[in-house]
């Protein structure tokens, strides 16, 4: 039988087939953060249950943590949530990467950095962007708090077997066009619910040539297209990345795993339930103009006219989005002026992202009407960036250089937009109110965000001085 990458991971993880569709699957790695776990630990306590495999579990603090003066958490409810996680980790023996640890950071950034994330694994976290880890050829997806409790107690999860989708990307990404632009254009193509019920495999040369960081950016946003999980077959780059880290497998374990890993690809002619073919050779940098990540347009185009959509539902979606975003149909995308720029998040807060942004702005000054900030995805990213002097480049340009955390990706911490403020953001969601009530978010790549910070409006980085 020809098998897809997904099937090659799913099948060996089935502990018990419950019915035709549902299975009890084993979870290799469970990541935990402060927001979606307190009720789960409480559930364990109420039922006198324990954490079955504390060593397959890792916790950190990312959503609530302030990105400056971080030991001084002023919001009492945020503080309580953080302290609750500390107490729970202690009580149940779960390793915690706390605020004072160099390995603290956004949960999806630190998993790969620690070598916890490995090919062929099943990985879950009470967070929808768990799909990020699929970049390593793992089956990784977000779960709710009841499921977090289920995994803590049993190290397994009841799951409906997803359908499979192949997104075949043909051609090479043009110069100056990034994995972020590619995934935004893919979401536009398949729709924000196009991937619902599917595990999506991204295939094609563009991904083979892409760095691990770029692959993480793509898989991270799979959920924005509704996908249950996103994955890319592991290759030499992947195997190299997962070695030499704190939790990397070694010796005979590594040999055994290598046998498994090198077989992790979809067999030729393996069947997928759904297939999309996309050509990326003429792709341009993309920007979201609306309030969902499928409402995007190329830098050289215009804000669309709601009337240009075919169904009444799409028309009213587009109109609502324009009203919320304070944009006019037909407005040039490059004329949109900005108040804020945010570079960071689990989508684009890794070292490579910071390097490309720094490269763009070096020696230039942030526009006087713009407040710009850079928030490294983890303590380690921050340390490495400072070693290379990236922090200097940013601060000399007028960017704020912050401590690691989710920051303005969702504004559960002090970093938020005020009403009507307009922000170019390298994060993943432009939902209403995501970065602050009535705040207006435009999703872009780090390069596009950096150039926009300098100019005060969007520009095409490809032909920008």
């Amino acid at each position, binding site marked *: 039988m020809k098998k897809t990458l997904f099937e090659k991971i799913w099948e060996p993880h089935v502990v*018990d087939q419950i019915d035709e569709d549902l299975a009890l699957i084993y979870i290799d790695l469970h990541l935990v953060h402060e927001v979606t776990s307190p009720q789960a630990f409480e559930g364990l306590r109420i039922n006198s249950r324990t954490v079955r495999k504390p060593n397959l579990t890792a916790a950190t603090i990312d959503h609530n943590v302030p990105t400056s003066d971080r030991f001084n958490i002023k919001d009492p409810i945020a503080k309580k949530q953080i302290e609750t996680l500390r107490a729970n980790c202690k009580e149940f023996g779960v390793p915690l990467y706390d605020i004072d640890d160099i390995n603290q950071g956004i949960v999806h950034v630190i998993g790969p950095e620690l070598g*916890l994330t490995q090919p062929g694994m099943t990985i879950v976290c009470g967070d929808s962007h768990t799909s990020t880890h699929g970049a390593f050829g793992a089956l990784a997806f977000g779960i709710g708090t009841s499921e977090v409790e289920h995994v803590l*107690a049993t190290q397994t999860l009841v799951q409906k077997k997803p359908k499979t989708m192949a997104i075949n990307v043909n051609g090479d990404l043009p110069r100056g066009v990034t994995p972020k632009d590619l995934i935004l254009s893919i979401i536009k193509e398949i729709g924000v619910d196009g991937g619902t019920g599917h595990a999506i495999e991204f295939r094609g040369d563009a991904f083979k040539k892409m760095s691990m960081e770029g692959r993480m950016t793509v898989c991270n946003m799979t959920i924005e297209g*509704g996908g249950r999980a996103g994955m890319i077959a592991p290759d030499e780059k992947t195997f190299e990345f997962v070695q030499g880290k704190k939790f990397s497998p070694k010796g005979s374990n590594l040999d055994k795993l290598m046998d498994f890993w090198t077989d992790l690809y979809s067999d030729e002619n393996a069947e997928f339930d759904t297939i999309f073919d996309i050509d990326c050779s003429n792709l341009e940098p993309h920007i979201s103009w609306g309030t969902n990540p499928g409402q995007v347009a190329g830098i050289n185009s215009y804000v669309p006219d709601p009337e240009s959509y075919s169904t009444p539902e799409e028309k009213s979606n587009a109109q609502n989005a324009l009203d919320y975003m304070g944009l006019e149909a037909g407005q040039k995308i490059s004329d949109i002026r900005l108040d804020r720029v945010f570079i960071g998040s689990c989508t684009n807060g890794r070292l490579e992202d910071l390097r490309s942004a720094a490269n763009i702005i070096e020696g230039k000054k942030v526009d006087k009407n713009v407040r710009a900030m850079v928030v490294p995805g983890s303590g380690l990213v921050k340390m490495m960036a400072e070693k290379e002097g990236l922090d200097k480049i940013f601060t000399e340009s007028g960017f704020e250089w912050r401590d690691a955390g989710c920051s303005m990706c969702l504004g559960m911490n002090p970093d938020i937009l005020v009403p009507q403020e307009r922000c170019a953001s390298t994060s993943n969601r432009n939902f209403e109110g995501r970065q602050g009530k009535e705040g207006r978010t435009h999703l872009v790549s780090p390069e596009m965000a950096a150039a926009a910070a300098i100019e005060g409006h969007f520009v095409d980085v490809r032909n920008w001085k």
Partner: protein
Amino acid sequence: MEAFLNHKGLVAPLDRANVDTDQIIPKQFLKRIERTGFGEFAFFDWRYLEPGVPDPDFILNSDRYKSASILVAGTNFGSGSSREHAPWALLDYGFKILIAPSFADIFRTNCFQNGMLTITLDKDKVDYLMGMASSPKYSGYQLEVDLESQILKDGNEFSEKFDIDPFRKESLLKGQDEIGRTLTSENKIDSFESSRIDRW
């Protein structure tokens, strides 16, 4: 979890597509460490002009829908974050059944985990229900769900069979604790673990 018995209730329409979990419960309310008490924050940004001042234009603020327990909504309801606070908020607000042309995967599972039923129907059927629940002529429009026979009906013309996984159905009917059920096959987990390669 309480067992899901047959349910009859007032229907409220929310005629928007892609209602995401950031809308259902904005992030500033995710810092609580309990499962309860989220109802007052449901749809917060739409519901209030400012804290304590309801927006009269928001449909659920209308007196007609005050006691609604069934919500009809547009496609891709519950997209976005995995926060289970979203179903907690809807449940606490009073909704027991959600009807839409499609739901986001994680949200849907989260609803089941809390004894809420999500019903997926063809868009024209959902549009019909949306019309009935919105029409001034049918104020007090109710629907009735029989989970055992998987029928949704309004006591007049509308009657539809809906799909549900047999396992989820059984869990809802029994109000079963999923963890407790899994732990009954603990020996299978034990033997699975003994065959696993150690990774670190």
